[in-house]
């Protein structure tokens, strides 16, 4: 089966970049910052593939570049180099060579993204239902009654009380805001869903509910997902395969149970040993 997403050599450097950047940064040098030119190597030569319906975990600590990877895939940032081939039914597209209108189309129709900070994923100036309506309207649904019904269904599915759908998400708890984000991301039934630290900072019981929800949705809809997190527990629960990143590089990748029980790289061993 062909992968739904194939990323090769994804690199993102902030700054002027010099020929020494890649050689002088990374886990062996314990830094992202190039000592020669002062550029920051946020991600370097990241490659991986994702099968339809699979959940891939990307694990790392701050500065590892894990968020950079999903941000470039969602077109929030442009990479410095690299390619990402997205396969949608029979149609193949190299994401970074599309023009901005094509990228925006994919973003609105075929990808979903849930941010750690709900301010990035939701419009707090409109109601929770309105947030979902906006995404449905982008997808050419133009029937008020249908939009309302579908928004209600999505909110119910993500355990948000439909009676609150006309309130602004400003008034919701953190966990509920994340669930509205998930509902909004799923409104278009995207084949690819990106989740960037979606439960970080939430109470444990709230985290558990949201992670369970994500698993259920994945079972129901067969959505391929990339889950970015620094939490081993989230990785263990959700991801069948995992990449471990440090200072912008992928230092290890493998089946999740293997990464957790037989970590190869020194840093991975350190991470796995660090569970409380």
């Amino acid at each position: 089966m062909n992968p739904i997403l194939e990323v090769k050599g994804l690199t993102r450097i902030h700054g002027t970049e010099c020929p020494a950047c890649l050689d002088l940064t990374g886990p062996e040098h314990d830094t992202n910052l190039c000592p020669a030119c002062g550029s920051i190597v946020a991600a370097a030569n990241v490659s991986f593939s994702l099968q339809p319906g699979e959940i891939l975990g990307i694990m790392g600590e701050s500065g590892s570049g894990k968020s950079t990877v999903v941000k470039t895939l969602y077109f929030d940032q442009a990479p410095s180099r690299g390619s990402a081939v997205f396969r949608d039914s029979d149609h193949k597209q190299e994401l970074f060579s599309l023009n901005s209108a094509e990228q925006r189309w994919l973003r609105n129709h075929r990808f979903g993204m849930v941010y750690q900070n709900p301010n990035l994923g939701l419009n707090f100036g409109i109601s929770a239902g309105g947030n979902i309506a906006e995404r449905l309207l982008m997808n050419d649904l133009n029937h008020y009654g249908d939009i309302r019904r579908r928004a209600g269904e999505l909110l119910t599915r993500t355990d948000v009380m439909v009676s609150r759908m006309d309130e602004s998400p400003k008034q919701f708890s953190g966990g509920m805001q994340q669930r509205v984000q998930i509902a909004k991301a799923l409104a278009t039934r995207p084949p690819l869903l990106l989740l960037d630290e979606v439960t970080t900072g939430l109470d444990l019981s709230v985290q558990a509910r949201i992670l369970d929800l994500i698993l259920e949705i994945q079972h129901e809809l067969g959505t391929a997902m990339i889950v970015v997190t620094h939490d081993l527990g989230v990785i263990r629960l959700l991801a069948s395969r995992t990449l471990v990143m440090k200072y912008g590089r992928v230092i290890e990748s493998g089946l999740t149970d293997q990464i957790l029980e037989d970590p190869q790289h020194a840093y991975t061993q350190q991470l796995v040993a660090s569970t409380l």
Partner: protein
Amino acid sequence: MTHLPDTAILEVNGLAKQFNLHAQGEVVPSCSGVNLAAYPGQLAALTGPTGAGKSSVLKCIYRTYLPGSGTLNFRTADGRVMDLARISEQDMLRLRRSDIGFVTQFLHCVPRRPAEEVVAEPLILRDVEAGEALAQARTLLARLNVPERLWRLPPATFSGGEKQRVNLARGLIAKPRLLLLDEPTASLDKATTGRVIELLQEFKRAGVAMIAIFHDPDLVAALADAEHRLAPPQPLTRKTSALETQ
């Protein structure tokens, strides 16, 4: 070139595994010089003293551990032979879903889900209809003496023995072509152990190949068609890295 005796489903040759603990600067051998074969309808027992690496062998087959050296030639349902140590992660995941089952020593499962769903899951992953999968799960749980009042509860609060029965049920329900069992009856009473023996004998008749670790020599006597006695691993003097996979 991958090669397998005509009837075997798996042949392990020269398997060795060690752990490179970077922080401690130590190399810990886990198993070495392991050779064995598994045949459909037969149970191969792994025996040997503690520390000989019996669990490691199973984990290397399942790729919870990355084998250090050796080959693990496996025959798929359509007759192709592949070295489990070298196939891609995607292929390994596929084999785990359809061909290879593993009853581990401890229950690892998704928390907060009822026992019957945990047991039904391998069937659902094989596209069995949900209602049918649940029905089979309940039948199997009953057969393993799990009281009905526990079926709709999450196993987190079960006793060790109850957890192990759920674990067994989940490992057995989908009748994989190759079944790995790591101390499957360790926490079970005699009556339930008897039921497990019956089940495994049925599996043999159904053509399932099995590799098992039993702590009880009577079980080995009752079920094993072949016994592989593992010796403690040879300490290695240099670090070897795990084989690269595709």
